[in-house]
């Protein structure tokens, strides 16, 4: 095996890695994907929902062939504070149009499917093997060492996930800091298909995405997530590692338990059975955590490159992973034509990314990570919403208060007016 030289070796058979492998194999390049899990996806976790636009570009008939759970047709945002919770629900037939399509997914199935597509196109998959280090000659990456074997290639694509220990090893990426990442904890709760559709008020094959701020994290920067799958519900929390212990000081594993016990969630999961308990890190630093994306003989894609956007009302990562993998593949094909795998030969990747939605959107939302660290979103705002709606709906026969005066006093009790104005201004600036 060590005599063979591949055009490209890809570390990690997740969505970024397999999107690249598919692109390269289709162009006739010899590509090997090395995945440490028994099968692709077996080490991966999503919230989660995928926005399908970039997958549609890669595999146009994905809607018929991919293992998608439910098409998301309703978006819920919940502010959970005190004893009350306020839900904003958005539904629109337009959400069902192919251009806007998004689906709940589970990674063990989705990643295995995409890997199969790449394998059919001619990519070689080596699973159950961990890449321990990168081979370098005169500063150029020339291959990998995996389980004691050396494998050589013209170029190595690092699609090895959020930590990317390999990119750290060669100095392309710094160690993650607590404020750059959130820790996600998720339970997959089994329920039958019809029960889920009935409880969430959706037709067969359709589903709901729900983000929850407040109560679950006890005021720490983060929130709850809920996605309906076909026969299960994905329920979890994500909390910024730099803010664990803030607010009420909840332990990370207790947050999902708190969510499950809340009056809003408990009836939705009643009678359910835990199928899996998982945890994974989520890059949350936005564009400021982008590593050096190209080196001599090496590229970085997906979570390893920090390509995730937490916008508060939605999370995006998998669409960026697939697009960055595809673009890395395109750049490698160009480099192969010129037989130049130096960082300048691979620099096409950087310009493809700059001209793609990835860098455009990361730049557009560059102030979002800072805004998302505003503690008021997770405590004061959900509580204010609860009090305001409570004053409207709790009727005991006593004299109603003047609306404006009432809202004013609720605001005054919870937050400084200047803080609120600053927060609103910051939100507008970040959007």
């Amino acid at each position: 095996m060590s005599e063979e030289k591949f055009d490209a070796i890809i570390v990690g058979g997740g969505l970024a890695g397999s999107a690249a492998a598919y692109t390269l194999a289709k162009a006739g390049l010899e590509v090997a994907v090395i995945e440490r899990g028994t099968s692709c996806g077996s080490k991966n976790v999503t919230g989660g929902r995928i926005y399908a636009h970039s997958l549609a570009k890669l595999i146009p008939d994905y809607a018929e062939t991919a293992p998608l759970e439910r098409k998301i047709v309703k978006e819920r945002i919940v502010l959970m504070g005190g004893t009350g919770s306020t839900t904003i629900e958005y539904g629109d037939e337009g959400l069902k149009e192919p251009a806007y399509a998004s689906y709940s997914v589970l990674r063990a199935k989705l990643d295995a499917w995409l890997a199969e597509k790449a394998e059919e196109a001619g990519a070689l998959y080596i699973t159950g093997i961990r890449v321990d280090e990168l081979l370098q000659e005169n500063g150029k990456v020339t291959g990998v060492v995996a389980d004691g074997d050396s494998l050589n290639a013209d170029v190595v694509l690092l699609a090895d996930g959020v930590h990317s220990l390999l990119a750290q090893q060669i100095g392309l990426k710094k160690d993650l800091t607590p404020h750059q990442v959130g820790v996600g904890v998720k339970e997959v709760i089994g329920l039958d298909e019809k029960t889920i559709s009935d409880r969430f008020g959706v037709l067969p094959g359709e589903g709901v995405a729900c983000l929850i701020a407040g109560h679950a994290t006890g005021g720490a920067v983060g929130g709850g997530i809920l996605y309906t799958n076909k026969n299960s519900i994905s329920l979890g929390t994500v909390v910024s590692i730099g803010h664990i212990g803030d607010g009420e000081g909840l332990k990370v594993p207790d947050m999902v338990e708190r969510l499950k016990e809340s009056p809003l969630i408990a009836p939705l999961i009643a009678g359910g059975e835990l199928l899996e308990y998982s945890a994974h890190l989520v890059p949350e630093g936005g564009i400021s955590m982008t590593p050096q994306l190209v080196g001599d003989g090496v590229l970085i894609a997906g979570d390893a490159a920090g390509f995730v956007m937490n916008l508060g009302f939605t999370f995006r990562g998998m669409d960026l992973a697939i697009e960055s993998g595809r673009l890395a593949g395109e750049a490698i094909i160009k480099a192969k034509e010129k037989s130049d795998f130096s960082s300048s030969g691979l620099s096409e990747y950087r310009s493809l990314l700059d001209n793609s939605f990835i860098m455009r959107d990361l730049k557009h939302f560059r102030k979002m990570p800072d805004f998302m660290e505003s503690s008021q979103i997770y405590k004061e705002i959900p509580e204010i919403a609860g009090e305001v709606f409570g004053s409207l709906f709790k009727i005991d026969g006593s004299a109603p208060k003047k609306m404006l005066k009432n809202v004013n006093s609720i605001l005054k009790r919870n937050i400084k007016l200047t803080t609120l104005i600053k927060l609103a201004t910051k939100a507008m600036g970040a959007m």
Partner: protein
Amino acid sequence: MAKMTLDDKLGVDRFKVDEHNAHIIVDETYNNIDEINRLIMACPAGLYSYNDGKVDFNYEGCLECGTCRVVSLGKVIKSWSYPRGPLGVEYHHG
């Protein structure tokens, strides 16, 4: 849904434990309580505890998220790597 302990939850997951190598090495004698508490608060699998003046950690049941690495590498965490393939946690949903 009935309340479940963390052990019960981890019991639902599938693991292939590497009996011979720990992929995370902790400094058992580390004694800054604040730092140890950060790990106890943060680990989604609840694998860290502090008993009789020693850091108690068991890598079996590790979900491989790397939160402890981000929180305390170079302090309580002496070294952190993924388990050798194909060992460790094996997600069937993810």
